[in-house]
């Protein structure tokens, strides 16, 4: 079967339900065993404004939003104007003739679909317009009608019992219209699937959902957060799910309170996290420093959006890297990672929790609006792949190893409860070194209610016992401890630190981070097809930077390009700071993700000129 790769774009007024059509098409195709990748471009307002849903479908994994539109459907004139310059002569344009008047820019194959009219007049239910639109697409794509009906019954739409009848009528009308269109136009783009064949199970979900699932898999027990686009749906996911896993979720009064609550919960022994976007992360800066200083494990997800300030809440940008790495007064190290695609959101999140617990450190996970909100098909997650890690605890007195305060009133054998041996219990408590100097810099962390080691975590400089101590010597020792500990991350397995692609003898090396991986890999495939060699390094770990792996990569290549979705080249700057090796920068900052074509073209221009 020939390689199948189809990109459909829907564009219309925000709030009219077109996102639902896109979503349902994606789910339907995924359920039929195809690979899907969606891309939405929305205004920040609740209703009104131009909004767009794109979906790319293939029989092989999809890596990027797609830069060649096969079908464009516009619901009104405004959206016609916005998108018409993106069509090629092979694009099929579908438009609502009552809302839109195509002109000479329209492609050869332009067909009217009076969606509104069909819904209003034939079905007499404007709410079913979505189902009509969806059905027409399925018909165009050669999906049998029974299959469509089956999929409809599995969909969210079928939940609305009161409109069931109208929706079934909408499928009929959509198929009638769609099949007529196929017949008259001769368009034929059968999906390469046999609806009756079995296929491997796969999920379709967003990056935010994958982060939510990864957190649960990692053992999340406490979530606190404050709504913010594009992170809110992580919280909403937990609102429903976390209690089912025995955890607690709180919507706090602001982001400062959210991180504070997370610090408290982690201090008390629970795996804890919050998720936010740039403005919220900015507000968390002071407390991130506290968590570094008190060595509190926790995970912060930053779903990056266009900045600065309130900026562009519904658009992606990789603009928060430096804030994540350097956003702290005083010298407070932390761990920063970036997932690269929806599946990676799941596994990286587990790793983030593992590292947080292991290194007793805040871990930041930098996602972006595109990764947060796009849907991708992924194989079911493998729960064995990344085993859970727990924090280092002091040894427990024998008879009471059964968890949180479960040993009741401190009836431990060493006299923590009776009045008799109090002195020794207290001495034992005082002997405890919360911040003991160890080779790794990691010290066993006592848990209130569990260990008989009361100590007071403080954000002031302190000694091993957590007692306040500003002596020059202690500040030096503790600064070393904090950095030595975090640098231990660099001894983790290489695959946790970086991903590498392409032939190791390629002279051109490309470095990207986060969700730019997909477009880069697709660009590399295309370049390879043209006979060009490129190798790529993707640091999953952004702080501390994996020095060994990056240095080896830099040593292998003649030229390095850093491709980033920001203006100043934040990773490029960090790399130059660390390795003193000048890099080329290719930056996009338009509130849109990279397309494979853009990267392909840029790399080709370099390959050709050198």
């Amino acid at each position, binding site marked *: 079967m020939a390689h199948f790769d189809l990109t459909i774009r829907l564009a219309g007024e925000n709030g009219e339900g077109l996102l639902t059509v896109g979503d349902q098409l994606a789910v339907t195709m995924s359920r039929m065993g195809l690979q899907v990748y969606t891309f939405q471009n929305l205004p920040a307002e609740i209703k009104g404004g131009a909004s767009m849903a794109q979906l790319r479908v293939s029989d092989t994994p999809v890596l990027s939003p797609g830069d060649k539109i096969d079908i464009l459907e516009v619901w009104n004139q405004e959206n016609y104007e916005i998108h018409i310059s993106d069509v090629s002569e092979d694009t099929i344009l579908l438009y609502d003739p009552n809302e839109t008047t195509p002109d000479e820019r329209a492609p050869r194959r332009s067909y009217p679909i009076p969606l509104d009219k069909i819904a209003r007049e034939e079905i007499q239910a404007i709410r079913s317009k979505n189902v009509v639109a969806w059905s027409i697409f399925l018909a165009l794509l050669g999906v049998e009608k029974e299959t469509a009906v089956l999929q409809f019954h599995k969909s969210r739409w079928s939940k609305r019992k009161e409109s069931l009848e109208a929706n079934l009528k909408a499928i009929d009308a959509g198929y009638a219209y769609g099949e007529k269109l196929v017949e008259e136009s001769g368009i034929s783009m059968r999906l390469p699937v046999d609806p009756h064949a079995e296929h491997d199970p796969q999920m379709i979900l967003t990056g935010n959902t994958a982060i939510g699932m990864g957190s649960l*898999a990692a053992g999340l027990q406490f979530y*606190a957060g404050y709504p913010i686009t594009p992170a809110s749906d992580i919280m909403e996911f937990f609102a429903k799910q976390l209690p089912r896993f*025995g955890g607690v979720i*709180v919507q706090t009064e602001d982001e400062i*309170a959210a991180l*504070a609550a997370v610090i408290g919960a982690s201090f008390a022994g629970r795996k804890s996290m919050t998720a936010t976007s740039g403005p919220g992360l900015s507000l968390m800066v002071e407390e991130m420093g506290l968590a570094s200083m008190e060595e509190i494990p926790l995970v912060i997800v930053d779903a990056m959006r266009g900045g600065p300030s309130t900026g562009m809440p519904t658009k992606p940008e990789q603009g928060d890297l430096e804030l994540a790495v350097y956003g702290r007064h005083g010298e407070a190290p932390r761990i920063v990672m970036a997932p690269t695609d929806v599946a990676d959101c799941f596994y990286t999140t587990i790793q983030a929790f593992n590292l947080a617990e292991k290194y007793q450190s805040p871990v930041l996970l930098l996602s972006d609006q595109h990764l947060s909100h796009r849907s991708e098909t992924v194989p079911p997650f493998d729960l064995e792949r990344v085993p859970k890690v727990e924090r280092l605890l002091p040894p427990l007195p024998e008879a009471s190893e059964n968890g949180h305060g479960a040993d009741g009133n401190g009836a431990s054998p060493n006299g923590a409860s009776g009045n008799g041996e109090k002195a020794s219990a207290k001495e034992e408590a005082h002997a405890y070194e919360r911040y003991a100097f160890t080779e790794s810099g990691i010290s066993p962390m006592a848990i209130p*209610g569990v260990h008989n080691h009361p100590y007071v975590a403080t954000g002031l400089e302190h000694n091993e016992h957590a*007692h306040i101590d500003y002596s020059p010597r202690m500040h030096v020792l503790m600064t070393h401890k904090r950095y030595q500990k975090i640098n231990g991350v660099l001894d983790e397995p290489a695959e946790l630190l970086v991903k590498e692609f392409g032939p190791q003898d390629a002279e051109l090396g490309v470095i990207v981070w986060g969700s730019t991986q997909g477009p880069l890999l697709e660009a590399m495939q295309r370049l390879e097809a043209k006979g060009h060699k490129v190798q790529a390094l993707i640091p999953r770990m952004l702080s501390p930077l994996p020095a060994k792996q990056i240095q080896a990569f830099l040593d292998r290549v003649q030229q390095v390009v850093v491709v980033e979705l920001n203006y100043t080249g934040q990773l490029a700057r960090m790399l130059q700071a660390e390795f003193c090796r000048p890099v080329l920068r290719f930056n996009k900052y338009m509130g849109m993700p990279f397309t494979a074509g853009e990267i392909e073209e840029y790399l080709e221009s370099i390959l050709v000129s050198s």
Partner: protein
Amino acid sequence: MAPVAEQKPPRKITDYRSENRPTWCPGCGDFGVLSALYKCFAQRGLDPKEIVIVSGIGCSGRLPEFVNAYGLHGVHGRALPIAQGIKLANPELTVVVVGGDGDGFAIGGGHVPHAVRRNVDITYIVMDNEIYGLTKGQPSPTTQAGMTAVSKSPSMPKMAPYGVLETPLNMMGMVLTYGASFAARGFSGKPNDLVEIYHKALDHRGFSFVQALSPCVTFYDTYENWKSIVKPMPETYDPTDRAAALQLAMTEDRFHLGIWHQGERATYEDLVGGVREQVKEETQPHLQQLFKMFM
């Protein structure tokens, strides 16, 4: 907080003294607040490992360091949300928050209404000295207006040479308006009464607010003045009547000491517990089920 029923044998006060000697100025009111706390803990026989004391920054914020218990001395103004996180993470713990009037009602003022409405079962002791002690004597949200405080303070003339231009906030009125299920006031000069108040606050299920008048003898010595004006709650006072409490709070000629209000309201933990299925140990099947929803 352990329900009252599970009474434990008392312990010694020295069980709760940490190795760190208090660093407060001699005569500081905070000593009284602290010693009452030792006494209360000892009388309740609380296991130090099951107590967590949370504070922000300020002279008062140093208190946890002086107690043999778990403690979290955080950043300025964020003790309440930290403490709620601790309690929600492990409802078995006794969680006490301490801090200053500035920590609690200036930089931290936004967290108070939400701690109250969430009604997590923690006890919040504000050590009110009507001044910023640790930063050397600037006016706080409770400092009296005009030249009153300025004339009595060696530091205030620096920050308020022309008088304090803002009217003070009424903490007691505020927490009552927010809907506090427990509110009380004590005075460091009457540590035994404070002990009683702490007991009631710790017995109370839900968010308990304790305003502890605690003079700063170095920058604004209100000790003699307060000693002369404090008095017990009116004889006929009914602490279950929030409206009456609020009325008194808004009109009182400072300072009635005692239990201002106590009512009943479900705690956040109770409500969370009601919706939470206890499946901690076996997440895998639940996750697999969740995955299916996306297939």
